């Protein structure tokens, strides 16, 4: 109960929450004005979008499928952010994870009970390695992680395109890699549902058949478990305490005997592992292959927005991941139904996201401003280590 009191005392949550809710409404409202000015009925547009997200079990399933990797990349950005690093590189770590998932998923033969965890761990390790490069460069040579992660994004993209072209991985006649083995797939009944019997069954059972038309998969479970683990690491472990201390004030952390350089590398490695995991579940659950990338897909970049909207807290990231998944999926429904140009829809979506992100941006700026108080507080009162001083 004392925790609760302390929470109350800070008075931060009701305010932050209120701001978030107001800004969601405000975002939809300003989006509505844009639609109105362009001559479309905003209620109709939002109606289409919401029907497109909740109208059928399959739509909800799609929203969850899209949300799962966004939650993981959001967690990646959140984790780095909480330790004072800005991970723009979730995009590249995602790609690194998906490459590893495809290679291990295709070439290793194991029973499903071992294969799925192995592929998942490989994706995490690949993402962690990719992420830790930035952490190491920052710790050792002072290279700013924003620069190095952006560069590593492009390296990952080109590596992806290069590897697909190599004979060992290229699926002849396509612009994609080999597909992973069936034992590495986590989509529910994925193999059976495209078989002739599966097709017939789906015709006969419209409700379940309809849900099975989406790539419904176990990725969301991985994402939710990861959110809990991240929360635990940040708030309940010595490692998390050390990493946060480095995030607040490097010098103070150093003075307190925390290995600052090692912490940076470790932090980026964990952030990378999370983004790599996102790539892994995308491969195992949805695509089963990597394709030649003509442009960044945005999984990692959207993670930045998801993290920001979620106020850089694991539970916030889970919620904003779902919100983002819904916007991303529902948004595509508006154009064909309403006939509004794509640019307009993007402006509306962008407006909504912008408004949702704003109060948190504001809160973050405020935190930066008054951060010296908190730093002193955290270092002088170690009992706060596992506390709730700034977490949900």
């Amino acid at each position: 109960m004392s925790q609760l009191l302390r929470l109350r005392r800070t008075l931060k949550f009701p305010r932050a929450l209120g701001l978030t809710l107001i800004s969601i409404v405000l975002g939809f409202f300003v989006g509505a004005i844009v639609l109105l000015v362009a001559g479309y009925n905003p209620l109709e547009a939002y109606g289409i979008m919401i029907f497109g997200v909740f109208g059928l079990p399959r739509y909800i399933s799609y929203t969850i499928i899209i949300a799962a990797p966004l939650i993981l990349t959001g967690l990646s950005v959140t984790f780095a952010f909480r330790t004072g690093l800005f991970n723009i590189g979730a995009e590249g770590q995602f790609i690194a994870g998906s490459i590893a998932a495809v290679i291990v998923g295709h070439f290793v033969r194991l029973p499903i009970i071992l294969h799925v965890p192995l592929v998942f761990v490989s994706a995490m390790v690949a993402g962690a390695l990719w992420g830790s490069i930035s952490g190491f460069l920052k710790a050792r040579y002072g290279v700013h992680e924003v620069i190095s992660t952006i560069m590593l994004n492009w390296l990952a993209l080109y590596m992806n395109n290069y590897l697909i072209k190599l004979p060992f991985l290229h699926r002849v006649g396509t612009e994609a890699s080999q597909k992973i083995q069936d034992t590495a797939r986590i989509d529910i009944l994925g193999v059976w549902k495209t078989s002739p019997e599966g097709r017939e069954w789906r015709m006969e059972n419209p409700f379940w058949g309809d849900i099975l038309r989406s790539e419904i998969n176990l990725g969301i479970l991985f994402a939710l478990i990861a959110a809990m683990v991240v929360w635990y690491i940040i708030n309940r472990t010595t490692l998390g305490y050390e990493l946060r201390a480095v995030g607040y004030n490097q010098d103070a952390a150093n003075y307190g005997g925390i290995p600052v350089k090692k912490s940076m590398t470790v932090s980026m490695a964990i952030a990378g592992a999370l983004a790599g995991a996102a790539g892994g579940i995308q491969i195992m659950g949805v695509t089963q292959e990597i394709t030649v990338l003509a442009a960044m897909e945005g999984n990692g970049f959207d993670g930045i927005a998801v993290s920001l909207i979620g106020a850089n807290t694991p539970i916030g990231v889970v919620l904003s991941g779902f919100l983002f998944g819904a916007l991303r999926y529902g948004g595509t429904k508006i154009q064909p139904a309403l006939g509004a140009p794509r640019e307009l829809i993007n402006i509306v979506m962008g407006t909504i996201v912008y408004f949702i992100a704003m109060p948190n941006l504001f809160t973050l700026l405020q935190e930066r401003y008054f951060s010296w108080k908190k730093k002193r507080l955290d270092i002088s009162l170690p009992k706060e280590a596992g506390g709730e001083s700034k977490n949900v």
Partner: protein
Amino acid sequence: MNRFKKVALMMGMLLAVMALGFAGGGSQAATPAAEGTVSIAMVTDVGGINDQSFNQSAWEGLQRAQSELGVKVSYVESNQSADYPRNLETLVDSNNDLIWGIGFLMGDVLLAEAQNNPTQKYAIIDVAYADTPSNLIGVVFREQEPSFLVGYIAGKMTESNKVGFVGGVKFALIEKFEYGFRAGVASANPDAEVYVQYAESFTDAAAGKAIATQFYQQGADIVFHAAGGVGDGVIEAAREQGRWAIGVDRDQNDLAPENVLTSAMKRVDNAMFNVAKELAAGRFAGGTTVEYGLAEGGVGIAPSSNKHVPADILAEVQQIENRITTGALQVPFDMATFEAFMAAQ
């Protein structure tokens, strides 16, 4: 407590927003097609609808079908390859008579969708299936033919004997442009050197500009691109440097009237329009692959070519076009056929 309150409030808020919007007419989402009207929709690939290239050309074809045939048309854009099945299904749900997939990137996905929804009609650009289901039409183009023609023009008109080719991403489809172009240059001017570089992108105009600028600095005076949005940068570079660029897919002379020499046109719009016209008349050639080349009027050089290309060269191009149409000249489309072509020269 507060944590739960936050969750609960957020959920409540979402529900409220949802209910508000839903009351506004969500039921219309499912039935946009009016009774008796043919409705056609398309899914773009990751290039997007305004790629100044084949997605845009496809949409122009549908828009023409809308204005001339009264067909109802719409599109959905894809941001990543995982979007293809979702977007195709979105269009199934909105009751379209025909659904187009634009680009071979969604070849596998579209085939699976067509098998899953046997009563829905589909068509796809740039894919020829080995075994096409009866509810699906594949449409392919012989891109090497117009590429050969513009290559011939480039070979004749280059003063430095150096020309360039900027590709999007190196796959078989884009290689048809590359080898057609190189064969065209070689047959017009055996001494000319062709610089080739791939941008590994169809959207990064800055990369296109950087590559083209580098080509021009190395002495090239004409650069051909087959790179979607990357080509905007190529044309931009040509305008800044006062050199020639050759456009692709549609007549790109409008992007830089003084610097776009000609364009290798791939009439995706014509193909889309033709299929729409057939469909409006109640016909659908499902289960087949339609191939468009010079002979079928599906590809060609841009009408604006006569602005900058001398008449005598255009006359030669016309002769070559006739030889290709009659089958007397087989244009190479990949490395093997290109090497055979060069060996025969």
